[in-house]
């Protein structure tokens, strides 16, 4: 029965599910049920969808390590690319609709308003990750360098959460939830890193051992 890829339903299911906020938005736009401030609503939904999907993609590696599952590693790229898709739409709506492509105002916003600066920085950081998301890129860069580059996703996550904090008027309960999730994910990674270091003894020793092995060979 194990013909073809394992869990062949997983990626198509997630792909369709990830489009749901967009589909709901289109239905609401057609029916005119997006509330009194549809531009703000669209920006909020797109930004939040990007943040949720980015968190989900960041959860894949910790989930694999914690529970020993293999499937999270196979959906990480899909989730990350959908996060990039939504943050791109979020930025496009800001550029085209919210600011009507007024270059002066947009530059002023990005330079002068920390809340927009950090959001923009998160988007910029995600761009090289989206561009190097192919398997060919992993081969070209080498796995170590590729992994190192893709650690930027955590930096983007931190910036995105700060962007959320600075956007709200005073009630930070929702940004706090995302900050908590992100911290938990970082802590899991830190714990695994410390455990690995402890297993290997002093990190320097590992380096020396590695080198002597190489010399020996």
């Amino acid at each position, binding site marked *: 029965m194990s013909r073809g890829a394992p869990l062949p339903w997983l990626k198509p299911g997630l792909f369709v599910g990830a489009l749901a906020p967009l589909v709901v938005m289109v239905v609401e736009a057609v029916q005119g049920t997006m509330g*009194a401030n549809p*531009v703000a609503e669209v920006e909020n939904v797109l930004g939040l969808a990007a943040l949720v999907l980015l968190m989900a993609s960041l959860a894949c590696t910790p989930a694999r390590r914690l529970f020993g599952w293999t499937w999270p590693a196979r959906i990480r790229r899909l989730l990350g690319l959908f996060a990039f898709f939504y943050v791109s739409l979020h930025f496009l709506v800001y550029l085209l609709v919210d600011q009507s492509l007024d270059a002066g105002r947009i530059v002023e916003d990005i330079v002068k308003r920390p809340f927009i600066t950090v959001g923009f920085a998160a988007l910029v950081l995600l761009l090289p990750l989206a561009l190097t998301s192919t398997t060919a890129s992993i081969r070209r860069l080498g796995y170590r360098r590729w992994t190192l580059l893709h650690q930027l996703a955590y930096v983007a996550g931190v910036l995105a959460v700060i962007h959320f904090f600075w956007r709200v008027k005073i009630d930070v309960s929702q940004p706090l939830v995302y900050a908590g999730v992100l911290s938990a994910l970082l802590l899991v990674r830190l714990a695994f890193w410390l455990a690995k270091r402890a297993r290997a003894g002093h990190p320097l020793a590992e380096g020396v051992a590695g080198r002597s092995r190489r010399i020996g060979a």
Partner: protein
Amino acid sequence: MRTLPTEPPSSEITPEGLYLRRREFIKNAVLGVGTAAVFGSGLVWLVGQRPPPDAPDQPPLGEAAAVAAEPTAPGQYDTDEPMNTYQAVTTYNNFYEFGADYALPSRNAHTLQTRPWTISVEGEVARPQTIDIDTILGWFTPEQRVYRMRCVEAWSMVIPWLGIPLASLIKRLEPTGNAKFIEFTTLLDPKQMPGQNDPILKWPYVEGLRMDEAMHPLALIAVGLYGKVLPNQNGAPLRLVVPWKYGFKGVKSIVKIRFTETQPQTTWALAAPREYGFYANVNPAVDHPRWSQATERRIGDFTRRKTLPFNGYADQVASLYADMDLRRNF
């Protein structure tokens, strides 16, 4: 003798491999659809896509309703800009006592009981007293005022209020010569106002004006809108409307009016003194520390428009601030 039914020709028999794949295909399809449904609805829930609330069904406000219904020329204080819809005005509200998001007040404010309702008048007045809301409503016939409203969060509306000029009410309350400021306080009752269980602001909500601002003919105590009794989410039974200031100055569901010699400690100025001042005059030249105040989105529009000094009421009110540095007194 019974004959066995003839077997179908072997060409019609589904090969075993295909038969098993068919079962697997159905299984995978079900799992895929299930994944899409769970993941998709989870996302939709997390990003907060909900159907918008319905507009409230409010009764007409006595004689004032008839006045409001008459299609007369705009009065001297009215803007002739197109009004926002009743639906928008009553479902897009900032009223943190019922939740810190625009759709929440219209969903949650049904717990507010606006009768019986009294207003306590305190401080520098000839006679401190507690007045019933219906007594106040009996003193005046509300008039319609079509005002622009500019929120500090850079959106705006045009709203046909029904209200009492604040100056008329103040004259009835007889403040003493020591009264330099007027302070308004919202009801404090977490049972009726569940948002007050959340200490995001120091409850109850307090706002205030300098006496000359309060006596300005544009300052209004609203008791209705669109010819109807003021909906709870808009600050029933009575609220302040100061159209040349940011919307947060418009304290809602008032239970206390206090005349003071010193400047009141107002809620937002206490919560974030760098971001919100006591004056809070609409000013496109003074940005909020986190966002620009140069433009605003009129609810119903897609593109932004320029924000006007004093929200377009500069001709009427700029003289109140002639000697003041409005960058410092933001």
